[in-house]
């Protein structure tokens, strides 16, 4: 099965990181990505620019409405994702638990819908 691992973390906290900590975090993500590429679980993965760069789009009565930023104010924001292949939810949870962001943020594990 395929699972999307959505990485949520607190942007305000993240922006306070020292350059050294930031570098350390990047290195950890690099190691993690490498390991799941090698184990054959990796399908795709990216980091996202902060929500200050986000635009939310809605179409209402045929009109396209765009607003600045994400839809709702929440404590944690979507910051990146991995798309992985895993045999079941337990395997996906184990992969999610190893994402560096799981230690201060949270990872949402979503099975990918299969169209028949």
């Amino acid at each position: 099965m395929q699972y999307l691992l959505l990485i949520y973390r607190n942007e305000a906290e993240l922006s306070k990181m020292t350059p050294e900590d930031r570098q350390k975090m990047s290195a950890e993500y690099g190691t993690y990505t490498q390991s799941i590429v090698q184990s054959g679980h990796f399908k795709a993965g990216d980091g996202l620019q902060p929500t200050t760069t986000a635009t939310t789009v809605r179409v209402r009565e045929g009109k396209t409405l765009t607003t600045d930023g994400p839809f709702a104010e929440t404590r944690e924001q979507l910051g990146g994702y991995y798309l992985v292949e895993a045999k079941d939810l337990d395997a996906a949870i184990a992969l999610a638990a190893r994402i560096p962001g799981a230690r201060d943020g949270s990872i949402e594990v979503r099975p990918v819908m299969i169209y028949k």
Partner: protein
Amino acid sequence: MISPADIDRIFRDEAGRALATLIRLVGDFDLAEDALQDAFAVAVERWSTCEVPDNPRAWLVNIGRNKAIDRIRRRAVFRAKQQALVHELELNAHAPDEPPAMLDDDMLRLIFTCCHPAFAPEVQVALTLRTVCGLSTAQVARAFLVSEEAMSQRLVRAKQKIRLAGIPYEVPERDALAPRLDGVLAVIYLVFTEGYVATSGADLMRPDLAIEAIRLGRLLDRLMPDRAGIKGLLALMLLHDARRAGRETAAGDIVLLEEQDRTLWDRAQIEEGLLLVDDALRTPGRPQPYAVQAAIAALHARAPSYAQTDWPQIAGLYEVLLRINPSAVIELNHAAAVSMVDGPGRALDLVDAIAARGALEGYEMLPAVRADLLRRLGRKDEARAAYRAATEATQLEPLRRLYARRMNELG
């Protein structure tokens, strides 16, 4: 000939296990449930006119497997994958009976799947009662005080999640086993505590739930022997449940431990519980919280009277619990034990310290314990106020009546 009541009893005993094996064979919760219902229907017809088979579970699994094949065939879209499944099921149908160890594993798989942490705790409890214990959806709904429709929805969504999220039908691997087993024990404990003191309603206890939890505990102890956590929990449940007949009057009023007629306690069940506590405490390793709680229950069960209870040791065991599993609820229980050793004044200081931290805000037993201590200290006005707060905090009728009685006695 066999009576319908006997057939019902067999279904009740075998439903969980037969379902557990069918789920493994057909790989689908809903299909397995439907096939088992079909098999029950056939059984009602056949068993009432001729003999019940020697091994009703194997019989039910066999008929269920055939019914599953029929159901797959009847489905409008008959895919190649399902064709392969039908083929495999038919091949297996002629294989000799499966070894008992395999069937035990099926039961464990079912338990661990129902208690998967990907479900909310109340969903874990509902799934376990419905599939492992074989309660009907209506019975599970009653246990949760929700409508049958709402419960049915909850169960449908849970089974959908098993399928769509890929929750495995497996006993967790070595590393994951200990935390997952803790989750299973927590579910059994939740079922038991609701049976021991209901959260709301007219009745203090829901013995059916307590009995279900004990059944689950016995089953797990048999399937996974020599685990201190399981033995401790089973002992705890047996020892608490043994006092059931003494805990309420015929009118449904609460009889507190202090006033209970100890000859009404179930001695045989207490003996069984005491043996299990010893087993659990003797197991090497870090003491298990359930085993320590069971040891406390054992001291109560052994005591000839309330006054002659070994309160210092009970207070000491609560201190052990606080070290291995700190919680404000345990602190409150510890304070109640301290009141029997050092007096209610010292205990009240402890309770007020917990309240000051705001750790138990909204917990209904906090004002109840405070009220009792204030009453024993002769501080009548404060005791009355605390009983009023306790009355407001609970939704259980027998508790409200107890507090009203106490307020009356205070004059």
